[in-house]
């Protein structure tokens, strides 16, 4: 599967995205209906993939498969009945469930439910988040602003840290970490809820929501949220195309460094302690194999710029990539040189940051 990603010509994939993810999606969103055949396909394929990931014995797989298929069918029939994709909404009750789910996941992933400090801290953060969002939601819908959003995000992080600090007990550091992550995820969920609540209004002024060209709709007058959704829908396709470029190299590097880490002694120690294989991989191996990746993400900057030249050409963005391409086609050394200077110095800065981050993550380096 990973081979698929780094054998895929990006420009070809980008054009395909334009056709299938934009034009056909836009045709579909006009009605946003799910015919029975489509629901069946989604339910069976989705249930099959997830049950394959969950694994286990054949009996367990069959049970997960059946349960998931039934759940997916119900969800999509509901989506079809209320044309959810034209009028999507999470609403406060689902938001509360979502945040509680995030909190439970965070507790399970960090310390487990037995640790009282972490549990109290994360649940406290979740409650603060839910109450805060319930109070502020109406205000955010009517009078939004970028500073307000960032300010609230900062407040959420501080609240999470305070909860972790005061309720954490003995495992204070882990409690702070878990509750800060919880508050960040809760803020993201709130943002998604706000954006979804404005989607119906956006569809009214922009009946074909996913554009294939440009970075903003021309002559577009709507609310603050409408403009943000507009930017997001324009970013959507180029982001997927660029993501593919990076995903290809990251999977390769993660695989290589994972294989190296799995040969280390401490993995053998962890296994001989009797920890389950999943925990060995996620707790012990993955964290350490991600250290080299932290530097590669920065080194990959050059690759992203190369990818940007292609995506900007395909999606008609006016950016550095387009400037470079037009400059080169017009044999204009100044534009090409400007491109080299800016991207080159950005790459140098990124590499320096990568080196610093590497020394920070792996203390053996800085010695």
């Amino acid at each position, binding site marked *: 599967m990973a*081979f*698929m990603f780094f054998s895929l010509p990006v420009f070809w994939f980008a054009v395909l995205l334009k056709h299938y993810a934009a034009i056909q999606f836009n045709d579909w969103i006009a009605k946003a209906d799910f015919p029975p055949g489509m629901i069946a396909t989604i339910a069976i394929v989705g249930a099959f993939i997830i049950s394959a990931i969950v694994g286990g014995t054949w009996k367990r797989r069959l049970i997960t498969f059946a349960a998931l298929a039934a759940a997916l069918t119900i969800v999509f029939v509901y989506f079809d009945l209320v044309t959810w994709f034209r009028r999507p909404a999470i609403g406060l009750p689902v938001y509360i469930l979502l945040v509680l789910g995030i909190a439970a996941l965070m507790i399970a992933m960090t310390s487990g439910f037995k640790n009282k400090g972490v549990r109290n801290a994360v649940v406290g953060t979740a409650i603060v988040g839910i109450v805060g969002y319930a109070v502020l939601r109406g205000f955010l819908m009517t009078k939004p602003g970028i500073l307000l959003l960032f300010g609230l995000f900062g407040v959420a992080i501080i609240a999470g840290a305070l909860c972790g600090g005061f309720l954490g007990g003995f495992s204070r550091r882990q409690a702070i970490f878990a509750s800060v992550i919880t508050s960040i995820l809760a803020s993201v969920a709130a943002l998604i809820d706000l954006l979804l609540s404005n989607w119906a209004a956006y569809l009214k002024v922009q009946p074909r929501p996913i554009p294939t060209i440009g970075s903003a709709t021309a002559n577009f007058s709507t609310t603050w949220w409408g403009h943000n959704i507009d930017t997001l829908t324009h970013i959507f396709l180029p982001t997927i195309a660029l993501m593919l470029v990076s995903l290809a190299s990251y999977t390769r590097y993660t695989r*290589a460094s994972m294989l190296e880490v799995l040969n280390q002694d401490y993995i053998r120690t962890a296994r001989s302690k009797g920890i389950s294989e999943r925990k060995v991989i996620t707790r012990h191996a993955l964290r350490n194999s991600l250290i080299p990746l932290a530097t590669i993400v920065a080194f990959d900057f050059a690759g992203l710029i190369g990818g940007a030249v292609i995506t900007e050409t395909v999606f008609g963005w006016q950016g550095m990539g387009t400037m470079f391409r037009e400059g080169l086609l017009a044999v204009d050394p100044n534009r090409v040189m400007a491109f080299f200077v800016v991207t080159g110095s950005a790459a140098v800065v990124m590499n320096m940051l990568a080196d610093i981050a590497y020394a920070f993550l792996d203390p053996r380096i800085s010695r």
Partner: protein
Amino acid sequence: MSDDTTNEETMSEQQSAEAFEVEENLEDAAGHRSYSQGTLIRRRFFRHRGAMVALTVLTLIVLMAFTSAGIGPIPGWWPKNFIDLYPNTGGPEPTLRLWPFRIGEHPFGKNTIGKDYFALVMEGTRKSVIIAFVVGIIATTIGTIIGAAAGYFRGIIESLLMRATDLVIIIPLLVLASVLGRMSNGNNVLLLALVLGVVVWTGMARLVRGEVLSLREREFVHAARAIGTSHWRIIFRHILPNAIGTIVVNATLLIASAILLETALSFLGFGVQSPQTSLGLLISDYQSALTTRPWLFWWPGVFILAIALCVNFIGDGLRDAFDPRQQMD
């Protein structure tokens, strides 16, 4: 496995290729045959199912591309060429049918002005394959020599060579390649391949340097130096044969990325230029035809994907064959 055999293995890894010939066809106490390093690698590679399938598919594609138009004086088996226009009989749709199987007049259809698209795609495949392999050879040679020199000599030579490598790495590959590709003016495919080869060797140089850095401290290199072997002889006869795994695997992966790079360049208009054709150029020409004449868009893309996928699978098979510790299971 007992400690003795492990030691023997590490010992035998350290020696140069000739030493293994002696060990061939030996039987140990339990009556198992022991194999030379080369035989082991070959057997592991042939047992890698993905790599073998990929090798077959790639061979078929390359054979089809090169024999269809003929090589030199030998005529090919496909009667049409990619230059002539063909009369409009039976519409531009592809005539290839899988069931009942028939190839028909124009298996991949015709393009907007009536050229046979099968011949065009085959021509593009030929160009892309030639460019990819030439780039692979050039980049491997440059990268290996620079990496080996930097790793072996250390000191000022190393810092000079590696800083030069960093200088090339810091500029986005696609960007550097498009400037050079534009300068080479696209009509000469070999020149384009040469130019691309000059920019993609950096990764290879770094890897070979890392490998040589550890190999040069081994005992057999000290031994060779002690009997007065010259530096370049040590590099080529003693060090590089031991680094051959890294080099071969990365050469394969380099070829795969060279195909993608060439097609991307041609797509942007800086690689192969019309009237020559290449898979990337075909996609660039017909990207807006996806709704009206989808086959013009699909076929070149499928061929790029197939070639790159096959080369990547072969590289993976080689990696597993050369370094069995790197397998997931």
